[in-house]
């Protein structure tokens, strides 16, 4: 999703620790006990593994060399076997039962945390790719990341124990052996290099992969199907696919050899220098000088390899913490983000009155052009006003400002004479009903889609009334469960799917479910046919007798009904007045209206 190029940022060691601790604390809150249990399980595994393998082998082989008989050795073998079985019984309780439950609890905690935050973040954040990237990551990865942090901690414990136990064993056999551990320590440096190379490779290939994905989509998604069959555009797409593949290959060639070299070095340092080196030394001590017991020699051979790889993997785990920290940094930014549009502490109760825009200008963050320039618009308590104008004149942005989805860059918006920033955001928005062209149908019941809030007793009547008014009741009554029918095929193959026009009717129904101070319609009828549009407007006008109404429409025929019309052009109010006044002005509106009416009006003349 993110199209910004990632850089491998660096965090200070302190921040890395603090971030991981932050996550662990949250996880502890989300599912208490989970971290401790997992660490205990890993620790037990590490200990038992050491004893039932290295220690047992040493015990048995040295015992044989010392001439012990089978009866003396058997109790230890069987004992270790039983120890293992006990561990398994405990371990499986964790893996097969509790870890699943714990995970779900954590998911509930974390997802709700981020969703709640997400709903508060203002709309402008969606347009900021950096922030959006953080936002998406927070939503998608938080739970699994928390799991990974806990897992990394457990892994470190596991490896730490194994390291300590094996090192102690080597120490008791021959301290010189520890010298061979220099090689895996060297390898840690290579690990870092190799990770960096992989990361660079990944970062570069993101773009190439995205291109591939895009072209593939054009070949299989239904929305492209018609054009792909009817035109030659497929050859363009296929050429681009090929180019993207070549790009990906170039990246592999660029980084592949380097990555191979680092990994080769790691392998040679660990399996040849450390393991075979120590083996050679142990064999020398056993055969040439006779300083080492046979069993000890065997243990050295297996322990040194385990030890080398543990050092290598601990390095891996520590690098993982760095990676976690980067991610958590992201999450913390997201959670700490203070929404810019929020209720002021000393807010005042909502008052009824006119909505007024005074000298409002607006530009989107990070852009240099004002989308709206010095706008003055007024909508009285029960007035109907229309916003008309070309595409891109700024009508939809204006509506978003009225709903306080954005705050004006300069100038102010007032309701009943008070700056809208002085009201509570929730209360203020609650007094509006807005219907957008791109209304989204949720995979919830019809009722919930109409109410857009959890249902309560007595809602049935409201929903029925609203559907009736918006002209959707006939369609809904045909559905198998009426207003309880779940919409979309998201979860149910036989779910109800609405057509464009039906969707709009449903969206409009929402406006009929509550008392509004203002109703805002952003081209709500573009997908409706003329008759449905006509009925809808009539119902709407009736329902809005006691509230203000602001509507955007391309069809000027509906603008005629407005008390006042604002014609927007390039972000400015070019003309304003009633239909009659504007026609008399004989300016842009009149021109536009005539062009559109031309065909209809000729009929009148006949």
């Amino acid at each position: 999703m993110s199209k910004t190029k990632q850089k491998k940022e660096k965090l200070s060691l302190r921040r890395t620790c603090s971030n991981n601790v932050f996550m662990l604390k949250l996880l502890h809150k989300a599912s208490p006990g989970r971290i401790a249990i997992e660490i205990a399980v890993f620790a037990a595994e590490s200990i038992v593994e050491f004893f039932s393998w290295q220690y047992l082998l040493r015990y048995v082989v040295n015992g044989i060399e010392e001439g012990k008989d089978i009866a003396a050795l058997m109790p230890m073998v069987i004992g270790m076997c039983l120890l293992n079985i006990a561990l398994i019984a405990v371990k499986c309780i964790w893996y097969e039962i509790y870890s699943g439950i714990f995970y779900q609890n954590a998911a509930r905690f974390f997802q709700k945390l981020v969703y709640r935050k997400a709903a508060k973040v203002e709309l402008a954040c969606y347009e900021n790719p950096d922030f959006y990237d953080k936002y998406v990551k927070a939503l998608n990865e938080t739970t699994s990341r928390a799991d990974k942090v806990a897992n990394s901690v457990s892994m470190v414990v596991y490896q730490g124990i194994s390291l300590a136990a094996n090192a102690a064993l080597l120490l008791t056999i021959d301290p010189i052996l520890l010298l061979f551990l220099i090689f895996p320590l060297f390898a840690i440096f290579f690990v870092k290099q190799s990770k960096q190379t992989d990361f660079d490779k990944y970062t570069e290939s993101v773009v190439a992969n995205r291109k591939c994905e895009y072209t593939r989509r054009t070949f299989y998604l239904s929305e492209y199907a018609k054009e792909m069959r009817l035109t030659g555009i497929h050859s363009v797409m296929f050429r681009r696919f090929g180019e993207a593949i070549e790009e990906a290959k170039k990246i592999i060639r660029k980084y592949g050899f380097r990555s191979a070299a680092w990994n080769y070095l790691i392998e040679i340092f660990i399996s040849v220098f450390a393991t075979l080196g120590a083996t050679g030394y142990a064999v020398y001590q056993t055969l040439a000088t006779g300083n080492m017991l046979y069993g000890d020699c065997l243990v050295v051979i297996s322990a040194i390899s385990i030890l080398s790889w543990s050092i290598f993997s601990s390095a891996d785990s520590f690098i993982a913490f760095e990676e976690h920290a980067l991610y958590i940094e992201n999450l913390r930014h997201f959670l700490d983000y203070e929404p810019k549009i929020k209720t002021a502490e000393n807010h005042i109760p909502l008052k009824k009155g006119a909505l007024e825009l005074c000298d409002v200008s607006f530009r989107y963050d990070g852009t240099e052009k004002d989308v709206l320039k010095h706008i003055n618009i007024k909508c009285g308590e029960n007035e109907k006003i229309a916003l008309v104008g070309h595409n891109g004149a700024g009508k939809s942005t204006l509506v978003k400002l009225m709903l306080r989805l954005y705050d004006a860059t300069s100038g102010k918006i007032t309701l009943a004479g008070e700056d809208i920033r002085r009201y509570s955001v929730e209360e203020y928005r609650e007094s509006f009903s807005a219907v957008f062209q791109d209304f989204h149908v949720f995979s919830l019941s019809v009722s919930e889609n109409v109410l857009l809030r959890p249902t309560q007793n007595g809602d049935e009547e409201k929903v029925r009334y609203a559907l009736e008014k918006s002209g959707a009741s006939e369609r809904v009554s045909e559905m198998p469960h009426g207003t309880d029918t779940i919409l979309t095929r998201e979860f149910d193959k036989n779910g109800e799917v609405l057509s464009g026009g039906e969707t709009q009717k449903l969206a409009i129904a929402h406006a009929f479910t509550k008392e509004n101070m203002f109703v805002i319609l952003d081209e709500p009828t573009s997908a409706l046919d003329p008759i449905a549009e006509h009925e809808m407007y009539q119902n709407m006008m009736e329902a809005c007798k006691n509230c203000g109404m602001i509507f955007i429409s391309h069809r000027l025929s509906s603008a005629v009904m407005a008390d006042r019309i604002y014609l927007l052009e390039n972000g400015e109010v070019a003309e304003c007045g009633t239909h009659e006044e504007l026609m008399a002005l004989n300016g842009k509106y009149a021109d536009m209206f005539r062009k559109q009416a031309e065909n209809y009006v000729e009929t009148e003349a006949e």
Partner: protein
Amino acid sequence: MMNTQNNEKKIKTGAILRNNIFLLKLAWKYTPLYVTLCVLEGVLWGVNNAVDVYYTKILFDMLGRNEPFEKVIKIIIFMAAYYAVFWLFHYWYWKVQNGLEQKKLQYRIHSKLFEKARELDLACYDNPEFYNDFVWSINESDGRINKQLNDLGKLINRIVASLLVTTVLVTIHPLLAVIILAFTVIRIVLQMQKAKVDHARALDFNPLDRKTDYINRMFRLADCAKEIRLTHVSENLLSEYEKTIEEKKGVVRKYAKKRYFLSIATWIMMNVADGAVMLFLLYELLVTKSIALGDFAAGVNTVWRLSWLLRDLMDRIVKSKEHALYVDKLRTFLAYEPKLTSGDVTPEAFRSLEVRGLHFAYGEEEILSDINFKIEQGDKVAFVGYNGAGKTTLIKLLMRLYDPTSGEILYNGRNIKEYDLAAYRACIGTVFQDYKIFASTIAENVLADEYSEDKKETVLSALSKSAFSEKLATLENGVETELTREFSSEGTELSGGEAQKVAIARVFARPCDLLIMDEPSSALDPISEYNLNHSILETAEAQTVVFISHRLSTTRHADKIYMFESGKLIEQGTHEALMAKDGKYAYMFNLQAKKYAEGNHSL
């Protein structure tokens, strides 16, 4: 989204084998080197495992026999040299060549998949099951095929290794191999049981995962950001989320006991096996004295290695089942024979298009019934009617994206099925309501084909006809401006109206005698719409044009208007004739005109 069906069906062992072979053949056909390297790597790894074990045995034997150090160190040095060479190949292959081969295969296999996808009848897209499978099979094709090849390498590696290691084991003591085998069989049975339980659990989880994914999407996507902020719908979503988590916990609990016991049994089996082997070797060493101390140590080591290999081998076989399911879908897709078959007649210049007794149904539901009309060269025809009256479907039939259920469509008096499909479609210029802008240059979008300098005139004139020139002048790279940000972060994103103009320009860029416009002006503002309509009529003076619109002002100048209702053609004639008839059309027209008329009278 689509990965939900992946393990819902059961599949037989024979089919698994066949499907895996099918995929291999496919890969072999496109990238023989890749397959060869996969197999080679597998064999080398297998041998490597055996070398490791054999080396340990020799080493322990020599230690046990107290051989001179010089002799032993030679073996160790040999191993060092061997590793140095082996790892060189290993990392070269995995870090460089494997990736390159994957890309090569991806490219070659997609040229086939894409071609096939384009042949697919549009009707297939209406069948959600087929469509899901189809999207899934293309979507997964890269990952799956590569994974399967790599898994194949590993499978070969495990088989070679298991065989070789077993041979080493037999040289130590034949009975050991028998013990290991016995335990392995028991474990396989347990593991298969576990796999079954896991599968059932995954099935229970699927719909719940889909639900949480959906809720996540609702909070993530900009589409519903407005609703989330302006209404309380987020509370509905959160309570759904809460419910789903509880259900998920229920699923975890439901299978916990079975999974617990099967897991425990499997693990214990492995432990008992290790213990039994050690005791057996101890017995042989100390009581019957039939093996040496070196054999004992090597035996323990080898058994440990073998049991790991066998466990892994089992996992891989289970996994290959997954691949097989995937291949099943891929095969269905590749084997799909388009129902729309091309004829071989080359279409001549357009004279007439006639629809006779046409019926069309999606499944049970009849969308169009008994449609009859004829369009002659030079006609300007309008299709009008309510939403869902079947107008767009009719256009799709005329374009031969579907074939009628009954009745026929005649182009120049000949059934369109007899024409070469691509050539026939190329005769008609169409813009659909749900046109798409592709991530390529403006020129390529207009031509809907490859662009070269000599086509510049065509592109420019088409864009000026669709009223895009003004916007074009503001773009630095002119017609070579890259659209969308898919390929370039500097790409231009067009607004809805602008995009529509580019889409409309497509029609003007093609020298077609017959143009079909499916509500081309719905996203345009009044002035653009006005200009566009004029422009279309002007340029298309000699051409035949079919409009679809529910704005009747757009269609009123048509030579003939066809009014559709619920899949039937209910009225037809000129605007005047239909107005005189005072039927449905007149009612609809008056309704729309009324407001304009009122507005104009107020002058």
